[in-house]
């Protein structure tokens, strides 16, 4: 895909953006707490800079690290600029997000991508239990499965999720 982007393939570029847009946006909003407008500006600039420097990115595994680094720098620059124009802005925002916080964002996105690879049965039950905090009784009624098998189905879903996450590295 990277080669196609370097050749000017707009379809490939759109795919690249789609693949990494959640990651970049999460850094802006959750890593550095940028507002929607500022996050959008940084988002655009990050991909513009990446487009112009595709030749410097050796391969696709390096692309994610590249995008993360560029985005973080742009977020810090944006926060500094905001602090100059709005001195009342929280001084803590001038600090880069801790490495483990950005690591959490990456892991969350990996899990989100892996969820998409699960069968509907497993994805549904994991979403209901872990994301929506549904009880076993509610899951049993809503999905018409025996109460005694809800926990087992969730366990199998988690095992499948683990396989997907581990496979993606």
């Amino acid at each position, binding site marked *: 895909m990277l080669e196609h982007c370097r050749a000017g393939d707009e379809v490939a570029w759109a795919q690249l953006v789609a693949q990494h847009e959640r990651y970049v946006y999460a850094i802006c909003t959750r890593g550095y707490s940028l507002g929607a407008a500022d996050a959008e500006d940084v988002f655009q600039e990050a991909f513009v800079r990446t487009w112009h420097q595709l030749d410097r990115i050796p391969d696709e595994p390096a692309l994610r690290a590249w995008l993360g680094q560029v985005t973080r720098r742009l977020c810090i620059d944006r926060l500094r600029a905001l602090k100059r124009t709005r001195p009342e802005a929280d001084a803590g925002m001038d600090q880069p997000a801790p490495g483990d916080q950005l690591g959490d964002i990456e892991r969350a996105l990996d899990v989100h991508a892996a969820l998409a690879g699960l069968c509907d049965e497993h994805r549904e039950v994991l979403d209901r239990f872990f994301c929506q905090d549904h009880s*076993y*009784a509610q899951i049993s009624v809503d999905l018409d499965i025996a*109460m*005694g098998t809800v*926990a087992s189905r969730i*366990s199998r*879903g988690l095992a499948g999720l683990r396989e997907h996450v581990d496979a993606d590295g």
Partner: protein
Amino acid sequence: MADLLDASLRELLDRTAAPGDPASGGVAAATACAMAAGLVTMAARSSVETWDEAAGIAAQALRLQARASELVPIAADAFAAAISALRPGEGLVRDGALGPALDAAADVPLRVCSLAADVAELASHTAAHAADDVRPDAVVAAGLATAAAYAAAHLVSVNLAVTGDDPRRQHADAATSAAREARDRAQTVEGPR
């Protein structure tokens, strides 16, 4: 009341024994539910060598424990608000705060009751598959969770007594029955194989 989660066991026990603390029953029920979930987590983690589902069961038990732990300070706050609204001449007359306050006070134990039923179910499932040396802990967890369900259901009834019949009372009764059935199944699981 958020500091309850950071209190030592000694402090928590002392607060439970202190007269005039209206949150004791709800806090105790939520705490018992969280402890039961912890026991299930331990039993599952100790059984990963012999039980394929163990890791997944441990993850679920941890999630249930987190939900129950979150309810500990919420239970304390909700009951404190209800007691405040019941003071003669305040709330009740001034701004009609009694209904919402009691609603919140009933909602929290209802959530504890539902959680406890889930923990009992998971404990029963774990008792049937856990390693021999930790099976008794899973059975204990089922009993503890069922006690938490009964306690929370009683608090639901108490808080709804002022407002009359409410489907939440039926929900609490159903959760309590489910917990009891799960506990009974856990207690009939065969001993060491």
